[in-house]
């Protein structure tokens, strides 16, 4: 579903290479986790895939259901089915959460040549999904992420994901800044979305999120590459011994 082949990318301004030939395939219905120490390029990978400015892809490529996403604008990638849950969701004063969600849902539908969702259906859908994530009506009315706690921001990301129904979801350090209860809510939201035709790429620093979102495949990323791939047991190994042994082993 999501195929990344020998991807190389640098910071545009400094020319510093961050991704150094990364290859990875996320199949439909599977949850892949990427773990790695700070500075290994995990967040850069998510940004490059989602189309954030400031990076230059120098080699390799990435496709979503066979389509070259790197050639697309960020909004086209979203419409093609890619979703990135941000590590630091952005606050946007003066724009209501509902307005934002509805604009996004309908913009994607328009891009795909589908009919827009009418206001009543949209409201019903949002309310149902917000309820599952314990997001109250007050939060929906507030400006995007304004005055939200860390946990509320992450739940809001999952709400967006639920409304946009992407094919591939990338979760960038979604566990950062969450207490156990908040993490469980977020994980439940993600698990509810697992389906045979959807793939997940869960980027995390710690193993604990993977207790709640159990991955099918775990990759260890170091210095811009995948150095080891395995099952969920790999995450436990990292938790126990840290990354040092794995790095040594790969070297």
């Amino acid at each position, binding site marked *: 579903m999501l195929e990344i082949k020998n991807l190389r990318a640098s910071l545009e301004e400094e020319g510093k290479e961050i991704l150094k030939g990364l290859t990875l395939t996320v199949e439909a219905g599977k949850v892949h986790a990427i773990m790695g120490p700070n500075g290994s390029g995990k967040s850069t990978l998510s940004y490059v895939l989602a189309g954030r400015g400031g990076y230059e892809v120098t080699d390799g490529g990435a496709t979503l259901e066979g389509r070259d996403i790197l050639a697309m*604008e*960020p909004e086209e990638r979203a419409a093609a089915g890619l979703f990135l849950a941000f590590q630091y969701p952005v606050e946007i004063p*003066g724009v209501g959460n509902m307005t934002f969600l509805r604009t996004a849902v309908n913009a994607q539908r328009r891009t795909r040549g589908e009919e827009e969702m009418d206001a009543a259906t949209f409201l019903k859908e949002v309310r149902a999904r917000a309820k599952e994530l314990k997001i109250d009506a007050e939060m929906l009315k507030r400006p995007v992420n304004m005055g939200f706690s860390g946990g509320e921001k992450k739940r809001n990301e999952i709400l967006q994901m639920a409304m946009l129904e992407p094919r591939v979801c990338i979760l960038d350090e979604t566990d950062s800044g969450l207490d156990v209860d908040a993490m469980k809510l977020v994980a439940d939201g993600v698990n509810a979305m697992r389906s045979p035709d959807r793939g997940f790429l869960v980027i995390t620093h710690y193993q604990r999120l993977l207790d709640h979102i159990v991955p099918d495949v775990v990759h260890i990323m170091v210095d811009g590459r995948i150095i080891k791939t395995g099952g969920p047991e790999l995450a436990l190994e990292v938790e126990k011994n840290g990354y040092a042994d794995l790095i040594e082993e790969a070297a």
Partner: protein
Amino acid sequence: MALPQAKQTATEERLAGLNLPAAPGWTRPAREAALARVQAMGMPGRRDEYWRFTNPADFISAVPVPATHHARQKVPVFDGMDRVRLVFVDGVFDPAASDDPALAGVEITRLAEAQDQDIHWAAELYGALEARGQSPVARPLAALNTAFATDGVLIRATGRAEKPVNLIYQHESETSDAILHHVIKVEAGADLTILENGPAAARFNKVMEVDIAEGGAFHHVRVQGRDHDRRAATHIFARLGRESMFKSFTMTANGALTRNECVIELAGDDGVAHVAGACLGDGADFHHDDTVFVTHDAERCESRQVFKKVLRNGATGVFQGKILVRPGAQKTDGYQISQSLLLDEDSQFLVKPELEIYADDVACSHGSTSGAIDETALFYLRSRGVPRSEAVDLMVLSFIAEAVEEIESDQIRDEIVERLSRWLARHRR
């Protein structure tokens, strides 16, 4: 003191085309005094400090620059609201197009018909607040207005007005040169909302004097737009009594040249004055100037100035804002923010924020910024599938939100935001 020759000449040229009304009635002394002020001050010139950022030439020329009249909007702003409409066409009141001005708790009289009526409260106010507002900074266009206004309304609220009064300014003639003067008195405990919209004329000079008695409340929402070529110089002079409230918001889009001055005097303790504005400027032929002067002359008053300008394609925005805290105005809470969102490198924002404080127990803050669109937020919106152009529109609405939120009525605020969204969608590039 004699005026410099150039100013003298400019003033004579402007005055040559103007006549005091034939039967000014009780306005005569105020008009004659105002004319004397104009002759003493002279018309504004490029060298005047107060006009450093805005060229007044088009305001003082003998004849106005012709302005193409654009077809009226199919659905005018505020149309969905229950309100009393008072329509002026090229600066002349049009009774046929207006509603019956009967409104419980409010007396409305047309200025052009009031001059031979005995209206004491108006006789005391006409030109009086304007005259007070001439110090410490001269505002000659306002004095010119007091002297030569041909029409306007006198509105006195004695209770809680059940609906807003909407002053609608239609523009038809390409060379119209309108001078309107409104006088508003909000009596103790009364509550009045004034709405204003429409381009008015090729050249529009308007003064609104607002006197708010103890415990009174005055709300003002104005939409300036539509005609690209029109020139407008407007003044609001407000005086606030004890525990009274003044709230004014102005939305501006289009217009070759706009200078909106707002002069507020907090004269009684515990008054609250908020003045806000948002403007959208597109093109090198757009110049918008907000000039605000708030004087705290009583204790525990609160004032807020919130001005946001979105500028692109060479548009110019100006903000001159001052908070003056007089001796004894203790516990003053003054706030001023002026910001611009520059959507390209051709546009400019010229700012002069000023605080002048003569009391020792006050909290006053001011800030001014000029910046480009936040790329991180833009990427966030785009990553959710919102196309760049739509995402920029959302960021613009986000940017001006603090000003728009100064509108108290949800209904009016929603309509303004809705219209802004449509304006932005039409002006996408």
